[in-house]
């Protein structure tokens, strides 16, 4: 598979009336959950941000959260807001790069102009620059650790980020117009179950457990019982795990899930224009897996507004500096956040020496790999039912564009494999 982060393959097996689709990761596992064992609490974020170079800020934040909760450390609101801003900027940046570089080539025939390349690069650069101001770098952040910030972020920095954001407002809207004008293939979601974190994107209180996870049907209060809600299992054919929701249902998380939950349970704090836009596509979002592409660009606008809202009134007096180790206690903690592709869960257990004895990471790609397979099967079945002899090339093209719509991130998925 090309135009997907990491090495993966999609296999379609058609035998008479039986269709089976497998989405397998080919990349080597890098065993991060074992790598962190024995490490001190402050070293963990440096290691796990390298699980994935595309969404490193998400892993960094989730691990910081989990460790702070494990060791009983509280941070102040300004610290939490800035970290959340880093993650949001990363989501925005990831969406733009994914849509612009990885997805658009699938729909080139449907796009009116091709002047979008320089606009995409401009948005990418601006958002990356903003992310660098808060997080230190685009990949592998360096500005904060469990306990607080190590870099001093000044009010003038926040002002700079706000100015950078404001400069791409119209570009984002133009991008949205372009993406929303694409004709996406038709497909009915065979397992329309989804999950996302409550409160997103208006996280205004310091994030900490327990977490509320909304699904299409119910709500769960999740902390160290997360394995009851999201169970993972292993396969021989793939180097990544696959995940099922409670009651063994295939589900998805990500932009599509977040928007749907936002509509039903979110606070109406966004502009009415944006709210109207989301409502227009609500049905499409509910029914068609390809709609993730629309969801991503709409979410970009949502995040843009949310960032302006949360950063504008931000008062940084003296930002939480990293606390010394003797304030930390041993214990276990769970950090759950909304990463660019969906829910991300980090779990750590610290011993009295403040070293990790157990670690667990559940990534969004692992959550929706089964859903990719189920949707893929539905897609192939549709194709077979509609035409006499569907062209192999057509199946390949459509199935690949389906996979890309999810934006899987294989480096995230392959962080461990269990020995059989």
């Amino acid at each position, binding site marked *: 598979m090309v135009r997907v982060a990491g090495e993966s393959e999609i296999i379609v097996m058609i035998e008479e009336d039986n269709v089976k689709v497998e989405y397998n990761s080919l990349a080597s596992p890098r065993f991060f959950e074992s790598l962190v064992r024995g490490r001190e609490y402050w*070293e963990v974020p440096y290691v796990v941000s390298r699980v994935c170079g595309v969404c490193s800020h998400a892993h960094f934040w989730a691990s910081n959260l989990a460790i702070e909760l494990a060791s009983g450390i509280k941070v102040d609101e300004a610290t939490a807001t800035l970290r959340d801003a880093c993650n949001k900027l990363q989501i925005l940046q990831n969406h733009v790069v994914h849509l612009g570089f990885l997805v658009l080539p699938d729909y080139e025939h449907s796009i009116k102009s091709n002047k979008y390349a320089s606009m995409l690069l401009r948005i990418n650069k601006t958002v990356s620059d903003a992310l660098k101001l808060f997080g230190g770098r685009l990949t592998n952040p360096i500005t904060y*650790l469990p306990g607080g910030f190590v870099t001093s972020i000044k009010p003038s920095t926040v002002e700079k980020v706000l100015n950078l954001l404001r400069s791409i407002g119209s570009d984002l809207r133009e991008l949205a117009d372009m993406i929303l004008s694409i004709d996406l293939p038709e497909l009915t979601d065979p397992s329309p179950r989804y999950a996302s974190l409550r409160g997103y994107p208006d996280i205004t209180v310091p994030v900490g457990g327990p977490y509320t996870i909304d699904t299409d049907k119910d709500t769960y209060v999740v902390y160290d019982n997360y394995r009851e809600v999201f169970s993972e299992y292993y396969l021989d054919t793939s180097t990544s795990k696959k995940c099922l929701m409670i009651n063994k249902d295939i589900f998805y998380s990500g932009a599509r899930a977040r928007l749907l939950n936002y509509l039903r349970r979110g606070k109406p704090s966004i502009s009415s224009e944006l709210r109207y836009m989301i409502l227009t596509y609500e049905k499409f979002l509910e029914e068609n897996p390809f709609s993730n592409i629309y969801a991503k660009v709409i979410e970009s606008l949502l995040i843009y507004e949310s960032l302006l809202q949360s950063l504008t009134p931000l008062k940084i007096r003296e930002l939480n500096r990293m606390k010394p180790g003797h304030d930390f206690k041993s214990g276990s903690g769970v950090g759950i956040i909304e990463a660019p592709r969906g829910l991300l869960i980090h779990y750590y257990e610290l011993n009295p020496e403040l070293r990790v004895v157990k670690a667990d990471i559940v990534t969004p790609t692992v959550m929706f790999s089964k859903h990719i397979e189920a949707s893929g099967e539905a897609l192939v079945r549709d194709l077979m039912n509609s035409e006499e002899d569907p062209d192999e090339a057509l199946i390949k093209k459509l199935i690949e564009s389906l996979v890309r719509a999810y934006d899987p991130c294989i480096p995230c998925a392959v962080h461990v494999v269990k020995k059989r």
Partner: protein
Amino acid sequence: MLDSLSFRRGNEGVAIMVRVYVNDREIDVPHDALIIEAVERAGYEVPTLCYLKGFFNEATCRICLVKVNGRIVPACRFPVLENAKIVVEDNDLRKLRKINLELILATHEIRCWSCVRKGMCELLSLSKKLGVEGIPVCSECPLGEHSCLVLKGIPCLGSLTVAGCDAECPRKGSPCIGCRGYITNEDVWISALRSFYSGNVSISELKSLVDFFWSYLPRNLREILEEVSNNKR
């Protein structure tokens, strides 16, 4: 006010011009121009260390070597020769300049962590230009005695890591975890372990950082780490 500065004054108004060829480019320069001035006028650059234009051109460092009609001479010191063919850079010159820089480094004890030039080191910029590795990240880190992480007890591998990132992480308060790779010269290791870390950061904390990216640390350096660690007990 420039009086005491000009070590070489010609009559600027009535300069006699001569033609020289810099890397095959023809230019006309005053007859008493230095080779390095002619090279600059032609749009090229010669690496230097001791040269201070207007103040010092004793050619003691032997870095600014160029070829004039096939002969290797210091560009900051010698004047031009009429119709001279000046070569600013070729394989011979690159090799020679590198050797001379390495010899200079051999007479300079590397202790960037406590140096007054840290953050603005000319040896480091010259090393980057000529392709010599072995100077640690401390040389480009502006954190002096008031804010150096190690002096505050925070383990940071800057003094053993190959420079080139502009000390991106320590600048922001984040310790260096050695992602650029270890310095291979033993003298830097011994000096850093015995006179920089000692008293501020324990070897076991350092070893934990070493385990991030340096799993293939060569045996001789690992032994130095062990030796210093054992001497502590």
